[in-house]
């Protein structure tokens, strides 16, 4: 490690630089296409910046232009409103991350600390669900949500993930097991019941893992596609991912409206980028956490 300049280090840094550029460049090309006028698609050079940058593609995917303007800018006559889809996605992620983390923490705590008959059996059954591919429960769940009349509602979209996910229960149980018992035992001696201990002692002590699980849940929920595609097709509660899929085919006469699509794609990345800027350290550390478990 002392040698500052060795051919090996130079090579290593070169490889890392290539990797970083490879990770970031496609995003630049996305933005670059998004600020290109649709009319220039065939004629524009392949330079890093478009010849005539414009924001019209963003305006039209946010539903800020009239139908005629959207058509003139290369879109279709179809209505798109990515502002609404973004809000839907944020609500969807917040609901799932909030409720799921809380409920799974409660269960994880119970499995780690409380004594009751059948504890290991129940835990074992819950964990066995980790082995089942989601598509297996997805089909009957669709039928079930349909029977409840919740197709195309936010309630139907969040229902299967709102209450639990086996991984979070497993992960938080592991964490609670690793907490030292002394503080809790002291709290019990002070006359706290299991609830008191959980709320006042255990939860505050586990901010780190809770944020880890919460952040991970947000990221996965943001990426969700198949389930919302089935139960959230209606314009009113489309998520960004579903809306992108619809928009791909919404384009005039099956020719993808690439400038609009890339503008919409950029919008789907912005919230994630914000998350990364403000929570980057946490996110990266949360991976350390899961990685070392």
């Amino acid at each position, binding site marked *: 490690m002392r040698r500052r300049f060795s051919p090996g280090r130079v090579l290593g840094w070169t490889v*890392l630089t290539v990797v970083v550029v490879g990770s970031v460049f496609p995003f630049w090309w996305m933005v670059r296409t998004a600020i290109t006028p649709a009319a220039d698609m065939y004629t524009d050079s392949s330079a890093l910046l478009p010849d005539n940058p414009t924001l019209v593609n963003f305006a039209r995917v946010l539903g800020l232009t009239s139908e005629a303007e959207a058509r003139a800018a290369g879109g279709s006559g179809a209505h798109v409103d990515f502002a609404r889809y973004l809000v839907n996605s944020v609500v969807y992620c917040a609901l799932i991350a909030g409720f799921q983390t809380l409920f799974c923490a409660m269960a994880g705590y119970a499995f780690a600390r409380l004594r009751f008959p059948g504890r290991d059996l129940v835990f074992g059954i819950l964990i066995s669900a980790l082995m*089942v591919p989601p598509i297996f429960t997805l089909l009957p769940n669709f039928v079930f949500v349909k029977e409840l009349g919740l197709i195309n509602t936010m309630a139907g979209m969040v229902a299967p993930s709102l209450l639990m996910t086996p991984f979070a229960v497993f992960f938080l149980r592991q964490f609670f097991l690793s907490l030292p018992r002394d503080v809790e035992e002291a709290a019990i001696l002070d006359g706290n019941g299991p609830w008191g201990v959980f709320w006042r002692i255990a939860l505050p002590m586990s901010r780190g893992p809770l944020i880890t699980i919460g952040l991970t849940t947000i990221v996965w929920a943001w990426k969700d596609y198949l389930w919302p595609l089935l139960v959230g097709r209606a314009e009113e509660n489309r998520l960004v991912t579903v809306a992108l899929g619809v928009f791909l085919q919404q384009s005039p006469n099956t020719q993808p409206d690439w400038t609009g699509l890339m503008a919409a794609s950029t919008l789907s990345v912005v919230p994630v980028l914000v998350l990364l800027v403000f929570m980057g350290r946490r996110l990266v550390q949360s991976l350390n956490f899961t990685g070392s478990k």
Partner: protein
Amino acid sequence: MTSSTPHHPARRRDDRRAAWWFLVPVLAGFGVFYGYPAVRGLWYSVTDYTMLNTPSFVGAENYSALMRDGDFWNALKVTAWYVLLNIGSQTLLALAIAALMHRLTRSVVLRATLLLPWLVPNVTVGLLWMWLLDTNLGFLNHLLGTVGIGPVGFLSDASLAMPSIAAINTWSYTGYTALLLYAGMLQIPQYLYESAAIDGAGEWRMFRRVTLPLLRPVLALVLVVSLIGSFQIFDTIAVTTKGDPVGATRAIYFFIYEEAFRFFHLGYAAAAAICLALILGVLTAVQMRLLRASRSDLA
């Protein structure tokens, strides 16, 4: 896993009542959205069900039809091909990147940047690459064109389509995998490297003798998780190729999806989903065993 408490509290507690309240939401969620549908799924798999009729019992007919269905076997085959390509490239690349980072830098900015492709929805990733790889207007074909190659039909050539999909997802998941492996490497005691260096070991030998063996448990866990994830490839295919050309990218998830929601063969799709669950179950069990073996190795 089991923490042995040195001395038991005098009184054996029984938190039955409290535990019940702690567990209600999760048990309800499990019962309603995992247990109940699992039973229903099993039932559908032995019925003829189109979602518009009442399911009628047909015995093992769906399963025997699956065994005879060339498309089903093709779906398993192309999925296996995808998993092989994706896991292979992703793990090797991630291992290389993690090792480089481990020896060169602790930069959080670098790590956050590598994480970006993973944070983006697969749908966005699919769209983005579909655009970059387009035969006529795609940037990559433009680059190839300037050196006199192509155009290449990355997503429309039957033999290239699945490797392209695998490459797209490798792009998207390598950073994430690298960070997981990197986190594992951070746990390897520094003095091992120092003493290896004193013995005159070069970087490559340190990687082989120190990093790799001590990383095995983490590596195994990462492999299990990404393997199971890989089998469930759907989003990227649903956005880009939709199973084309000629089923070359019709992976098992997409096959089940089409059977269920395009042709409304729900019973048939449920049977296929159960077959997939069985395959994944066996694979996981095998991997877990390997994982356990590697753990005891370390101890």
